[in-house]
């Protein structure tokens, strides 16, 4: 930006004005005291010295009164004569580059009585001074970044340069019709308060300047009265005469206005106007730059804040997915919040009819202890409006840009409480509900205290997003808990909580879902069961595996278990029980072959010499018997027998082939029944397979049913590095040794 100043040379208008006034009203001697720069007054055509001012004595030397200057100052004679004879002012150069102006006094041409000699400021000097002042103002303004600073420079440096006695600079907020004072200077007392905020209104000098986008010049009180009769008394009330109101414009932008006031009348001739307008233009340019700077600064700050907040939200989201308990997650979220977003944070959760605070966080543990103690001594009022409990219940967020002391006073139970509340130093707070699917699970509270920062309505979006992240995590945790409960309930329907005591027999059942972490939520398709058939003095045992997993598989598993129990009570033998299970499954599935099951079922009777089990196998992996003492006939010492009982899987064909086979267990012999999760187990060494199972079971000869069951389960699990591919059910029946 460059400002070009053009200064037109010409007569110094204010002097003429004063001369005209003085000519009428004031005697020659008095001129010495009222007109600046006056040297002397002469009279007559020989220019006799009538009066000499102290400045005159300094500049012209000591000259006696009545001495004709024609003699005393021969170098002045031409100029003196010219002025005296022509009635027009003349000039003469004197020592030290001074220019002395000779102005005729009297009633007009031909009636000149004398001359006024006065030192006139050299136009070039003034121009140079103004140019230097301008450069200084430009430099200072270029360093000013804020509107307030620009206002200050305008009302001080620019006003001094212009020679104004008082000045107010205004800015016009974008789109506003009220001018706001940026800075004032030279107004006595509190008068500036009258002009702090000025609504724009036609018919007032500054408003006319702003709305008309052109300066308003009032050269003296007379012009005030003539042009603004209603405003004149105010305009000149502080003794001001002249006023210049200049709009601060850059292109089509109205940035404000500046009002310069002068105690003396001032003729705003074209060069003077140009000078003032140039000064105003400088200020306007600076304001515009500040506006751009502020806008850019704000935009960058907003972008940075947005970026930080996104990063923060991402961090919070990761935290909410961490494998932690709900309380621990919320505690860590609270800690995260006080590291970047607020001085304090708290989370409240709705628990039935109560709302509990589950976390409170601050960087300083001592402050947390303080709050804990405070809340212990003064439990929070659950009905206090706008508090976390209220927000948690209502689901309506609250933003307190300021926490006024009156609020603390109103909340305090007694003086001590009030003191403690004040000690926290709450400045600003925001409380948002933890909303999910239209339900409020609690509230997240953020507080600014010692940082002195403030929350505004604009923060609601961000804090709301943060709360939503927490709410979803909470909701998921609740759903997970629900699922766990359903699974637990279902599982108890599928598996016996414990196996009955069968006299003379050890029973051990085991079930393991594929993933140990899923123990609580997995509902598989495997089952084992042992139950009594008291009417026939028998015991029924079952191991089954419904293909697939999930609720449909679980429903079939449950169907199998309960059908078996019912049909055994009805007195059916094992093959008929399985046929009835087959029929029940077909009915249940309405003819679709979506699911099938394999099962092994048997009726166990105990006698003094051991146990007999009548087994039926519906497509199930073959069971095996671990003999306590290998039969004498088998010289190889192989003590594991596979039970090859053929039969058709259940749930698909209406006419399964099923045969009953008796298995005899001598004391110490054990029967192992299992689902295919055992033999189909795959590890780095391939399939677990029947051979491996056989030799494993053989190694448990002479051990209890529980030892065999645990040993097989551990081996299968270990074979797959602890993570099963399929679920596994085992049942070990051992005749007491």
């Amino acid at each position, binding site marked *: 930006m460059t400002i070009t100043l053009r200064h037109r040379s010409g007569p110094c208008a204010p002097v003429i004005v004063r001369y005209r006034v003085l000519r009428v009203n004031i005697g020659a001697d008095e001129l010495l005291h009222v007109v600046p720069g006056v040297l002397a007054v002469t009279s007559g055509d020989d220019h006799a010295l009538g009066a000499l001012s102290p400045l005159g004595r300094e500049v012209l030397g000591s000259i006696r009164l009545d001495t004709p200057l024609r003699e005393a100052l021969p170098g002045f004679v031409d100029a003196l004569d010219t002025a005296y004879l022509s009635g027009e002012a003349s000039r003469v150069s004197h020592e030290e580059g001074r220019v002395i102006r000779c102005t005729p006094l009297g009633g007009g041409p031909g009636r000149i009585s004398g001359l006024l000699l006065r030192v006139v400021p050299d136009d070039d000097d003034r121009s140079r001074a103004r140019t230097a002042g301008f450069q200084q103002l430009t430099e200072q303004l270029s360093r000013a970044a804020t509107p307030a600073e620009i206002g200050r420079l305008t009302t001080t440096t620019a006003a001094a340069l212009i020679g104004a006695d008082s000045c107010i600079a205004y800015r016009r907020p974008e789109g506003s019709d009220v001018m706001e004072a940026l800075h004032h200077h030279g107004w006595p007392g509190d008068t500036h308060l009258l002009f702090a905020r000025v609504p724009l209104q036609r018919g007032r000098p500054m408003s006319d300047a702003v709305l008309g986008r052109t300066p308003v010049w009032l050269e003296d009180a007379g012009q005030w009265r003539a042009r603004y009769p209603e405003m004149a008394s105010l305009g000149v009330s502080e003794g001001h005469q002249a006023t210049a109101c200049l709009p601060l414009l850059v292109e089509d932008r109205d940035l404000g206005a500046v009002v310069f006031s002068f105690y003396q009348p001032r003729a705003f001739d074209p060069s003077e106007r140009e000078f003032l307008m140039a000064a105003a233009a400088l200020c306007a340019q600076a304001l515009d730059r500040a506006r751009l700077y502020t806008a850019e600064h704000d935009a960058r700050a907003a972008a940075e804040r947005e970026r930080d907040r996104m990063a923060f939200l991402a961090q919070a989201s990761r935290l909410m997915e961490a494998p932690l308990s709900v309380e621990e997650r919320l505690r860590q979220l609270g800690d995260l919040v006080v590291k970047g977003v607020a001085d304090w944070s708290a989370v409240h959760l709705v628990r039935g009819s109560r709302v509990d605070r589950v976390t409170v966080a601050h960087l300083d543990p001592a402050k947390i202890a303080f709050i804990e103690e405070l809340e212990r001594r003064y439990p929070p009022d659950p009905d206090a409006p706008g508090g976390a409990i209220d927000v948690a219940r209502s689901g309506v967020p609250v933003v307190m840009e300021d926490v006024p002391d009156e609020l603390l006073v109103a909340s305090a139970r007694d003086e001590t409480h009030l003191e403690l509340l004040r000690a926290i130093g709450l400045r600003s707070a925001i409380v948002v509900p933890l909303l999910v699917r239209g339900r409020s699970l609690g509230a997240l509270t953020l507080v600014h205290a010692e940082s002195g920062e403030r929350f505004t309505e604009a923060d609601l979006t961000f804090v709301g997003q943060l709360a939503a992240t927490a709410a979803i995590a909470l909701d998921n945790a609740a759903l997970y808990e629900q699922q766990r409960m359903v699974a637990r309930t279902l599982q108890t329907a599928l598996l016996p909580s414990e196996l009955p005591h069968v006299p003379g027999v050890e029973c051990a059942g085991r079930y393991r879902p594929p993933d140990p972490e899923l123990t609580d939520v997995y509902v598989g398709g495997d089952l084992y069961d042992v139950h009594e058939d008291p009417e026939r003095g028998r015991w029924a045992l079952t191991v089954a595996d419904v*293909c697939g997993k999930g609720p449909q598989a679980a429903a079939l598993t449950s169907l199998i278990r309960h059908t078996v129990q019912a049909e055994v009570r009805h007195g059916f033998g094992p093959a008929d029980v399985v046929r009835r299970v087959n029929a029940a499954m077909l009915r249940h599935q309405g003819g679709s*072959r*979506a699911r099938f099951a394999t099962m092994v079922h048997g009726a166990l009777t105990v006698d003094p010499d051991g146990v007999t089990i009548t087994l039926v196998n519906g497509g199930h992996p073959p069971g095996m018997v671990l003999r306590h003492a290998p039969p004498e006939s088998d010289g190889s010492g192989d003590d594991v027998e596979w039970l090859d009982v053929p039969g058709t899987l259940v749930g698909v*064909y209406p006419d*399964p082939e099923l045969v009953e086979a008796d298995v005899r267990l001598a004391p110490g012999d054990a029967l192992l029944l299992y689902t295919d999760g055992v033999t189909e187990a795959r590890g780095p060494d391939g399939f677990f397979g029947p051979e491996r199972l056989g030799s494993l079971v053989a190694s448990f000869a002479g051990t209890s049913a529980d030892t065999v069951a645990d040993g097989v389960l551990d081996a299968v699990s270990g074979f*797959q590095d602890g*993570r099963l591919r399929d679920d596994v059910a085992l049942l070990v029946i051992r005749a007491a040794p």
Partner: protein
Amino acid sequence: MSEDAAVLRVARTSQDGRVELALSGELDNDTLPTAQDEVSAAEAEAPAVLVLDLAALEYVDSCGVRLVLLAQGVADDENRRLAVRLGHGQTRRMFDMLGITDRLEVLDREESPS
């Protein structure tokens, strides 16, 4: 445990009203949907005979049985034929154990459906 995701490949041939799907790789819960899509696509052509060749599978569990039983159900309902090739390895042993080999039209390796 790092284990490559199970891969199932299905090769399809059709000739004289017969569509044959030869499965290789692994057929388990993860790959069952792929196999079912292929079977459904073949069924949509309503071939007189659909042959499922499971003999070359490296791994098959009860999902393979489910695939066959479902296809058999569809064939029965629509009066078409389903035949399977089980080979003589693990797949065959599993079908035997389940007691369903006799209930299926089982073809030998090069045998064509009559």
